[in-house]
């Protein structure tokens, strides 16, 4: 089966094939024979050409947070047979307009930018109070604030869209 895996804004085509108890996995044109053990849910022990890796996976729909020997990676995985290819266009769209979503419940303390403002990557845009701390939501890239969807003092849920930047 073939998948597209997005990591750090790069996309890899990955083919997985099971073979007599082992896995043949192609990443682009590189072929790996992978000895797989999964003694616990969310955990794999992989041996690839004699090299042993501990891999922990936290899945959420198509998203997978992955720890390889404790190093953190964020991936998105799409099944080629089920989903259309992630076209270059779609990627550009993702890069073009971005919705900033709250990752956890909290309260909006203050809003530091308004629609129409040009902001630099890293500029603080909204301050959220969560887990007893004030946290600044920063612009993920240079761009223009298209929309601010929350107001100061508002209680927000995880997953709620805070603003749109383009």
């Amino acid at each position, binding site marked *: 089966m073939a*998948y597209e*895996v997005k*990591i*750090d804004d790069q996309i*890899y085509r*990955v*083919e*997985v094939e*099971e*073979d*007599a*108890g*082992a*896995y*043949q*996995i192609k*990443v682009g044109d590189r072929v790996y*024979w*992978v*000895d*797989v053990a*999964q003694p616990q*849910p*969310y*955990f*794999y022990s*992989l*041996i*690839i*050409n*004699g090299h042993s*890796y*501990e*891999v*922990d*996976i*936290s*899945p959420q729909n198509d998203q*997978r*947070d*992955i720890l*390889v*020997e*404790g*190093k*953190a*990676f*964020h*991936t998105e*995985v799409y*099944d080629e047979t089920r989903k259309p290819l992630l076209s270059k266009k779609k990627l550009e769209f993702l890069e073009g307009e971005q919705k900033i979503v709250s*990752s*956890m*419940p909290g309260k909006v303390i203050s809003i530091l930018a308004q629609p129409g403002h040009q902001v630099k990557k890293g500029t603080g845009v909204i301050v959220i109070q*969560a*887990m*007893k701390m*004030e946290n*600044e939501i*920063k612009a993920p890239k240079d761009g223009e604030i298209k929309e601010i969807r929350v107001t100061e003092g508002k209680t927000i849920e995880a997953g709620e869209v805070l603003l749109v930047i383009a």
Partner: protein
Amino acid sequence: MFRKVMVANRGEIAVRILRALKEVGIPTLTIYSEADRNSLHVRMAEEAYCIGPPPAEESYLQIKKIISLAKDKGVDGIHPGYGFLAENPVFAQACQEAGINFIGPPAYAIEAMGSKTRSREMMQDAGVPVVPGTTKPVRDEAEIFRLASDLGYPIVLKAVAGGGGKGMRVIKRAAEIKSAFRATQSEAQSAFGDSAIYVEKYLENPRHIEVQILGDKFGNLIHLGERECTIQRRHQKVIEESPSVLVDEEMRRQMGETAIRAARAVGYFSAGTVEFLVDKHKNFYFLEMNTRLQVEHPVTEMVTGIDLVKEMLKVAAGHNLTYRQEDIKFRGAAIECRVYAEDPLNNFFPCPGKILSLRTPGGPGVRDDTGVYPGFEIPIYYDPLISKVITWGRDREEAIHRMARALQEYVINGVKTIIPFLQGVMEDKHFLQGDITTEYIDQKLHRGSLVDAGYFKEVAVLAAALDAYRTEISRGTNSFPKINGLKMVDNPWKMTGRRMLLDSRL
């Protein structure tokens, strides 16, 4: 010593105190909010009672409910941990009035040190050097402006009732005064219920070094050496060590004696910490006194061999200190890393959630002080500090290498944590050389190192697809495909592949 002791806290510190109580054989009782039914301290205590709804104000800060429960259940001692009621003199007083032993310092010492302005005044009187600035709260922006002109920029605004890095703002230019004043006041009000603010000269790139002291009710006071707490993030400590690379034997003696003088000025007993800022000329200034057990107390325990919680219990019960100053011997070096449920790749944003799996580090010289377990859902209501790892080594180098090894073993899957960030620090040459300031995290650490993991990225890509594949297969068959089963294969290149794999297994 005690009939029954209540631990009026949660998380890792409640667990740590429960452990000490179990070791000395005192029956344990704890409280929990409705959000904490599944918390580790509830499981570990012998008795546990729900004290109210999730917000701390309605549960962990409910003095009357807590005292009434304690009386009802035959509790004769309460350990407050840190945070919550630990530095609340009203609570300490209420315990005393209810005939319950507050396992901490006297209420008047808490109160005196709780006001940053008052404590600065008292320390000046006791001959303890303090950072230049006001000893009275400021009234308005104009006053701050005048003070800044005298002291010179940068200055720092601090909540009078503050502590632990909360309620403070650095001001580098006059233009920042207005918004900083407002923000600090509002944070002070919401965090401490008191919006009063004072001003200090901001020492640039100072070291943040603190001294652990211990006293009994008979006026015996000793110090247990220093802790280096310079590495901070948002003015909160992240990594602490003992000893400090900066402090030699003579400086340790001087700082220790100064800390004891500070404690004696407020009639202190129990465990406490005197925090100093140290400038580049190794001058040290009193910053504040923490009248409680510190988060970072384990590094002192590991170099001295002294169990601070047990000493607190003894002192509270009216015993003499077990140790005299000359009994305190330092061995090797210890380092603590605080593990926060925060995303280091996203501006350290807090990440509560459910821990899918957890592997804690072990082996020689590693101490695991955790407050969580696999299957635990980190509540959104409290501090994102979920555990601490402490390592000991014969010297700083061994302690650091051991920490790097321990962090590699430490896997918390399901919530994001700062473990990858901490790993980066342990490998950073500035940190290894001891070349650190409070700005270290922002200035020195090469953030890219968090994701620059070479071949591991390829493994992550491969594993993501593998997991997707196996998840699909298992959805179809409701069980994982057998991976050790033997299956005939007829495709010749597949046979070759399998043979290659077997070859690599020898």
